[in-house]
């Protein structure tokens, strides 16, 4: 109980300090226009899927951040194995949400992928919901994280 009280007092103090310490600075923290973020997100996702379909290890690797969570090598190797196992016929997607936080861009998307495994004559349809996070590294947006279904 006492610990909770201390935490509450500490948090309240910080809020008060945060609210009162600043009384006038140049505004540059406006949210980026949502439509611009959607346009950017659509371009990044399409570019990533095109790159995956026209896969080479080096070019796909170049789209993924060095500090990709949790492992860039695992993602790239997994993608390379899947490309080796099945021909990707097409991938379609629609954006659900696009959020930004400092140098990160989070994109929620639904996707449908059609593949033709080399060892089968059946066309396989897969679909999923992915949360892809891009990171701005020296002006270039690189894939930083993938949550939920991995389309690669």
């Amino acid at each position: 109980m006492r610990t909770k009280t201390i935490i509450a007092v500490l948090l309240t103090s910080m809020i008060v300090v945060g609210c009162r310490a600043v009384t006038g600075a140049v505004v540059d923290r406006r949210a980026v226009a949502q439509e611009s973020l959607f346009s950017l997100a659509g371009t990044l996702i399409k570019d990533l899927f095109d790159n995956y379909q026209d896969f080479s290890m080096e070019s796909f690797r170049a789209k993924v951040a060095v500090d990709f969570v949790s492992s860039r090598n695992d993602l790239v190797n997994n993608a390379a194995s899947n490309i080796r196992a099945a021909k990707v016929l097409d991938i379609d997607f629609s954006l659900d949400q696009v959020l930004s936080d400092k140098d990160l861009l989070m994109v929620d998307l639904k996707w449908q992928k059609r593949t033709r495994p080399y060892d089968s004559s059946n066309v396989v349809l897969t679909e999923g919901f992915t949360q892809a996070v891009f990171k701005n590294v020296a002006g270039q947006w690189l894939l930083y994280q993938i949550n939920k279904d991995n389309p690669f």
Partner: protein
Amino acid sequence: MKRSFYLKIFLFVVLLFSSALADAAEVYYLGGPQGSSQEAAVNPSYSLKQRFQDLFSSLSSIRKDPEASGSISGHLSQTVVHNDIGGNREKSYLKPGVNYITDLNFSIQEKLHADYNFTGQWFLRKTDDPRVESRRDVRLKQVDLQVANERNLYQFGDFYGSFSQFVLGSSLEGFNMDINPTDDQHYQIVIARRNEADTVANSFQRNVFGFKADRYLFKGSDLFSDFRIGVQAASSQDDSASLPDNHTAKDLRNTVFGLDGEIVFKQGLSIQYEYAGSAYVEDEDASEKTTTYANAFRFQPSMRLGKANVRYLYYYAQPKFYTDAGSSMSDKIQNQVSLDYRFSDRVNVTVSENYYWDHLKGSSRTKRTFNDEKYMTWNLLPLASRRSFNLRPYVNYQVRNSDDPGNSAESTTLTGGFDISDRLNAHTNWGVGYECRSFIDRVTRSNSEIFHRIRFNWAQDMMLWARRLYYAITPNVDIRHRKGNDNKDVTVGAGFNVQYDLFQRVFLRMGNTLADTNSASPSGDYVNNRGFWEVDFLVDKERSAHFIIRGERNNYTAENGAQSYKEQRVIAKFEVNF
């Protein structure tokens, strides 16, 4: 024991940040943020009438007046799609008939008291396309309400909560506060939900509470250019009252505490680190609930040494480490070293060694798997007289082993290839690429295979009848040979894309992608031919208003006729900014 451990950590944090609070208070009475050299830019005062006038008059032009008290902006798009599907409809993710999608993004900006600004953003969607939305009513897909100035942000709605890697990195819905009282302090508080209750998925509403504090030390030091230490905690808690009583959902509780930081020396060495501890209860409603505690740690130094840049990563996560709102790969130890070396402005080499394994103490896996990966890539400009000619050879060697008696994971993968790109003149680019990937399954030899991929591309921008013409051609060949099968899978592909500026405001686009596969498996041959054409009318240049008519065709013709399908789509789309 655990309680006392966390109490000690808490006291450490209080001591660390207490001096910061004292500084902040002093700064307040001095009348400005510490170390801030920026001039105050307080918003003028506006009458209510003026605010309404500014808001609605902003709709008349796409260029918003920066002196105005506020503005409305946005983007509207309306799409109507007609789908026609023939052959095996189960192989199509489209549904025959007509679908529509209406998307509306709009934002309101308003200048507030002092230097604060309000920004409200909404994204609404209505569609009857089940691929896009499961419900047909108007959906509020995203809402974001912010009051912010240069240092502080108070946000309500959808946001991306981002602390450290192990603790929090997730899209959330709720309240987010991000404040910087002085140049050397940063605090963030998150009170939100991660997902709503879902009767179909049998899951409770999940709430997330988080707190983060960063302290930047040694400002102005001769030794450090940056020295940040941060503490954070995030707790994910299911709300068991969010579903009716007859549910069987599990009531999760997960708390992760993290200590992270970044130290950048002026001499070129930088260190990033993070330690996190997790407490996890899978089901609080279970009769015998147990809390599992585990730790994770990562350490990433990097250093510039003349022409070399060396990076190292050590990653350790115990098997029981669990983070609901953050990211981790538990049950893993990883060591990774990378070296970038620039021999000259025309020769650059990157070498990487990555070694990791699982099955740590307490693991539920039956065996330990080791992965050893080596990667080397060169970035070369071989022709001094032709700097646009770029050659990038690369090689990757990966060995996998396990400690079970049969070494059931043993395999070797060797990938090698090169990419060449060049610019012939200001309007013409070309490139070629080759990659060979050899996979040897040392346990089941018949799974071994070798895969070749050859790609070529040619793109040109030119004038034709005084109008711009852009075209790109991309032929490619894939060859796959599986051990034990004399036949090969051979896919020959060709793609082309064209854009022609028919008139000043009318653009014609078209493209086609062909893949013809001669399969090694019986009755496996197929031809996939996809194409589109598009006429884009620029209705209003200032508002970027477009009316687009597009046709798409996708024919998949297989030797096994039951797999064949044909898709045809006609799409009409109108979009405009306001």
